[in-house]
């Protein structure tokens, strides 16, 4: 899979990237801020987007909002959230297919993504 990783913390980004590349053998593109996340998401070359909820300049929720306003379909978005119970995640739940809570287990990351994607497909079918 071709994965867009939007994460401002370089340490977490490195770990997520290593995990995705070494465990799941996916291709990862890493961006560190909301603007880059938005422009990359619109290119349509990714299979899934991992979006950090809190980023400088533009939060994950803002990115979601702007993409929605443009009305352009994107790859499924998964929130990476250190605060998964806050209202913001609830608010953007319809735009995303799910969220992964931080701290995540890097060895489980790939299977978590696959689970979320397959349940999203099931939901759509059902």
């Amino acid at each position, binding site marked *: 899979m071709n994965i867009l990783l939007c994460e401002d913390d370089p340490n*977490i980004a490195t770990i997520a990237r290593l995990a995705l590349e070494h465990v799941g053998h996916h291709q990862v593109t890493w961006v560190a801020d909301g603007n880059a996340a938005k422009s990359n998401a619109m290119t349509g070359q990714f299979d899934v987007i991992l979006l950090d909820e809190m980023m400088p300049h533009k939060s994950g929720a803002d990115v979601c909002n702007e993409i929605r306003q443009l009305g352009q379909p994107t790859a499924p978005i998964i929130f990476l959230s*250190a*605060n998964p119970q806050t209202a913001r995640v609830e608010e953007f739940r319809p735009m995303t297919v799910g969220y992964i809570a931080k*701290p*995540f*287990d890097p060895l489980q990351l790939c299977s978590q993504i696959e689970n979320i994607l397959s349940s999203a497909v099931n939901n759509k079918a059902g």
Partner: protein
Amino acid sequence: MKSIRARLLVISAICLSIVVASGFLTFASFEQFSQLNSDLAQSYDLVDAMIAYKYKSLSGNTSQKTDKWIQNWRVRAKKLQPEFRADAVKAVLKNPSTKNLRFLSRSENEYRSYLHPLIDYFSRRAKFFGSLTVASTLFFSFGLLFYVLLYLFAPLRDLSKRMEEFVHNRYSYEFAVPEPNEIGELQSAFDRMAQQVLGQIEELKSLDKAKSDFLSIASHELRTPLTSIKGSLALLNSGIMGKITESAQNLMTIALDETDRLIRLINELLDLAKIEARQFPLHPAWISSHDLISNTFQRLSGFCQTAQVRLEHADTDGYELYVDSDRIQQVLTNLLSNAVKYSPKGQAVTVKIVCDAEPGELTVEVHDKGRGIAPEDQALIFEKFRQASSPQNPLVKGTGLGLAIAKTLVEQHGGTIGVRSRPGDGSTFYFTVPKWRRTANAQLRAVV
């Protein structure tokens, strides 16, 4: 003279004096009237008596009794006014001749013709003042009633309306300038109180906001470095990044375990803080007891396998609970994980639903055959960071927050939580759910 008390006093004093004065005048006129009337009657009596006396003395029928009668009339005649009447009576008593009698009746006639207009006058006067008394009494009582209604009840009603609005959060600062009297004082005292309360509410709100801001920053700032630590350790430990020696792996496992524990502690602390700050609004919905319990069992299946403890359930089907299912699953998870943690290997942990213990409430029980809890510890363990003394061989090191979280969540649902246990004989943790129904007839049994 603005105060209602003073006004009422003055008005009632005026009213009362007018009523009393006209009442007195009525009484005096009436007295006069009746006095004149009795004088009139006496004058007739007098003439009759003298005529009777004349006939008696003609018949020569005088006795001792008659002498007394004459004596009596002499005394009465002295008091007669004007004087010519007394003289006439005395003359008749001395000599009851026709001439004297005629003179008496003429003078009495004159006297009566003087009385008649006076009687008329006083009767009119009594009537006038009598009706004046009645009228002024009526007028003043209605006036007072009107005043009380207008100046007391209307502002009071206004004030109570405003209080009602305050209670229902619709209080506005746009109030009329209060009148300078007691009601006005009450009104401005209430307004001051309302403003103070509203000010304090604002302050509390901003404190609350600061608290929740702190919570969300703390969650983020604590979880971000932990994500890196845990991630690095897990990747290294897995061997994906290259082989490491066995002792290095041991150390890494220790670090990883402790990181996990730290993460759990932080998660639970933040959860508890958020629940206590009421930042987790409940999203209650009807959920079947079966789903609730089987979902929780599923979540715990890995943990139970490691601990070699079975999960069982009895009488748990056929109910629907009106709860926030995530939160109640968390409660059940905390109770079940404790029960599993403190159960000996090979034993079973049983979940049961009891609904007839206390009418109206449904009780979920988690029963284990573990070491039990000493009576003195039973209340303590629901507090934060409290663990029962002598923890023997706990499978997972606990943080002592599981039951505190469960308690807060159950109470948020309006239920209660508790434990029955004898040391060495297992324990039964239970919590109640106030709003539930049976699935079979879908009948609402109890609604809070």
